[in-house]
């Protein structure tokens, strides 16, 4: 029998309990340690060439679109869903941005960017709305929608092309204050703090975690489950749009068929980042680091002189292993 005393602690204890922080965020901390290790590996693989701020920026630029896609997938997976059309949505926004922004001024480009964020939210809302209205499993609806969005991307732009003003590209490729602080990383931090955190720590955020955790209990707690599910997809759509804009800024062009690579990697980043595929657990900070980890591995192998095709095999195997470990952890928890 458990007595009251065993429940421990005091009502409304103040201050930080470091042991609990580590217990709750251990996985995230681990992912950042892994990221640092991989960067050290990158420096080592680069030798004898010295690692400069330029190389750090290269890593940031390479991982930026995937980092946003991972954030998008995280919100959706935490809510108990999954979106297999995410990568293609990123591609749609990417080609839209590249075709609309070509030869425009920086100011206009920013306005277009805001408009495309709205488009991303609408696309996500369509995905979520279809899932809730039809009652068809998330994975089926979003797989079907990936073909729809994929077709839309090709209708907008048949081959890679388009462009964006230099100032807009600098938002993704430049540096902030010091050459060692990539602008992309700053933008991710701003989006996390200004967009996600206000949602996360209010009722909508609790509701998203709640429906992913125990849908029936969330319903009994008075949560509007359908609306919350759609909300998660809408937020995901916003982050996907950020990913598309980041792709435009970092590459300077639009590429209509980069989608599926991003989708698969976003799921891998979510799992590696500590989000449970069963929903309800994890955050967005871990998957961001995981996205950069997934980008670093093939780069290191290229520097080691490994055939890029092998690199693809190894990266694919890595994703399988990561997802498998996530699945095993899940299985153990259920037992």
């Amino acid at each position, binding site marked *: 029998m*458990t007595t*009251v005393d065993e*429940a421990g602690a005091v009502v409304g204890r103040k201050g930080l309990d470091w042991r609990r922080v580590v217990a*709750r965020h251990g996985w995230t901390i681990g992912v950042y340690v892994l990221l640092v290790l991989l960067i050290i590996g990158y420096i080592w693989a680069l030798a004898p060439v010295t690692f400069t701020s330029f190389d750090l920026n290269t890593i940031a630029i390479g991982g930026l679109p995937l980092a946003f896609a991972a954030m998008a997938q995280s919100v959706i997976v935490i809510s108990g869903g999954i979106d297999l059309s995410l990568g293609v949505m990123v591609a749609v926004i990417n080609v839209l941005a590249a075709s609309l922004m070509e030869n425009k001024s920086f100011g206009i480009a920013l306005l277009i960017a805001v408009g495309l964020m709205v488009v991303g939210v609408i696309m996500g809302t369509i995905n979520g709305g279809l899932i809730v209205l039809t009652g068809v499993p998330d994975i089926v609806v979003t797989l079907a929608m990936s073909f729809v969005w994929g077709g839309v991307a090709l209708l907008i732009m048949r081959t890679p092309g388009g462009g964006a003003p230099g100032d807009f590209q600098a938002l993704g490729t430049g540096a902030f204050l010091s050459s060692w602080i990539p602008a992309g990383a700053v933008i991710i931090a701003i989006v996390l703090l200004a967009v996600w955190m206000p949602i996360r720590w209010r*009722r909508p955020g609790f509701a998203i975690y709640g429906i*992913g955790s125990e849908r029936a209990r969330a319903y009994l707690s008075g949560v509007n489950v359908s609306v919350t599910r759609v909300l998660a997809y809408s937020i995901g759509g916003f982050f996907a749009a950020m990913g598309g804009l980041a792709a435009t800024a970092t590459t300077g062009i639009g590429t209509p068929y980069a989608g599926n690579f991003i989708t698969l990697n976003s799921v891998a980043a979510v799992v590696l980042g500590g989000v449970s595929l069963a929903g309800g*657990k994890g955050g967005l900070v871990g998957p961001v680091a995981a996205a950069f980890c997934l980008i670093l591995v093939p780069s290191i192998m290229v520097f080691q002189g490994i055939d890029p095709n092998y690199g693809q095999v190894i990266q694919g195997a890595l994703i399988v292993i990561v997802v498998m470990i996530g699945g095993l952890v899940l299985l153990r928890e259920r037992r």
Partner: protein
Amino acid sequence: MVSRARGYARAREHPFARLGGAFIADMSLLEVRNVAKRYGPVVALKSAELIVEPGEVHALLGANGAGKSTLVKILTGVIRHDTGTIAVNGDEVRIGSPERARRVGFAPVFQDPAMLPDLTVAQNLRLTRTDIGGAREWLERMDLTVDLTEMTSDIPLPMLRMLDLARALARDPQLLLLDEITAALPSDLAEKVFDVMRQWRDRGRSVLFISHRLAEVTATCDRASVLRDGRTVGTLEPRPGEEEKIVELMLGTTRSQLAESIESETREKEVEVVEAPAPKAAVGEPQLVVRNLVVGDDQDGVSFELRAGEILGVAALEGQGQDLLFDNLAGERKPRSGEMVVAGNPFSPRTPYEAIRAGVVLVPADRILALLPQRPIRENIAAPLYNRITRWGPINRRDETRRVQNAIEALSIDTRAQRQARRLSGGNQQKLTLARWLAAGFTTMLCFDPTRGIDVGTKRQIYALLRELAEAGAAVLLFTSELPEIQLVCDRTIVVYRGAVTGEMPAADADESALLKAAHGLGTVEAAA
């Protein structure tokens, strides 16, 4: 308390006085009139009546399947009722969602913890728009210390129940619904719950209290409404020492119902004698031996012996671990600890497949779960055959036809809708789950509530068949939520309470009230002779 009782008496004397209810100052807090609910062909509630006055602690009682939880689900907005009216303070309301229930002033504490495990307690409170200060105040009043920033999944179960209670209280409801809250509580915490119930009453608010423990009801409740077979059969003032009177009411000894049930049972028994000889003492070897099998958290071990040629009844209230026990025996779940022996060999199946290979088969309550609903009768009956007859070679259709035909005849299954099992009636579906094992062969049959929601005629056929199987040497373990049936079909009965066998008796002594008393923990029944 006297005035409350008098108020109630007045309402009973003048049933139509409430037509002008809106003008009467002291109207009832909650009036449930003639509420019914059916799930497809199964009638869960026929006509529930419940009147809760302001400032009373009202108990809702009933045996398993009487409709208590259905009524609670309706009142808390989890499901909607089909017909009847629910009025709060004289105004008719429709409670369509948990959110609506909250707005009309109901706060429930459900049987299972309701807090979301991946949020902190404080986040759970904010999610449900609960006043955190209020919840904290109630926790302090109950002398409990909890860190509200703790993850809910890290908090022990009894404390979670208390948090659910504090959360419900902080919403300041007119009516507090407590569904089996004391089931998971140690006595010191249960005492705190009773204190809170009294305090709540003293504020002029009301509590609807649901508990299997009759001693708690008589000690804390002002009035009690009793449900039986989906109908409210009476309301009374429970007093300590009158537990047995309440049990009688739960069983339904009102004159008309008694006559009704005697009539149907004698009809049944006449046929019973013809189709299956009366139960006789089991003489076979022990077929299934269970020793100290621990099936779930906070449960003691189950021990019993099941002999060949015997039907052993299992009597238990809801949630005493009987479902886990059957899952363990059928290989669907691994026991925490303990030992199982089948026909002298140690038995620890990892999957249902292994259990079936060892001759231990399950007839579950949920028929659709056991069947291949989209496939024809023939394939459903023949499915387990392919484990044995020819594993790699072609299927012997002639042998299959013979076995299937025999099974269909033994159970007189209605084959008119044979193309898809899901189109069969519930009774025929249940016969199908039995027929599979007749065709495939077995030594030990586990029947978990096999007659749930089945008509009397089919019930009789199923029980006659179980008796025949036992005569032929099979060992049958039978759990049924319909206690009178135990005396009808079983040779011997064990009573399971909190995952342990608390009583054992021959079927002759196992009448409904004896079983109910034992299952409620009212005096242990010793093994007779």
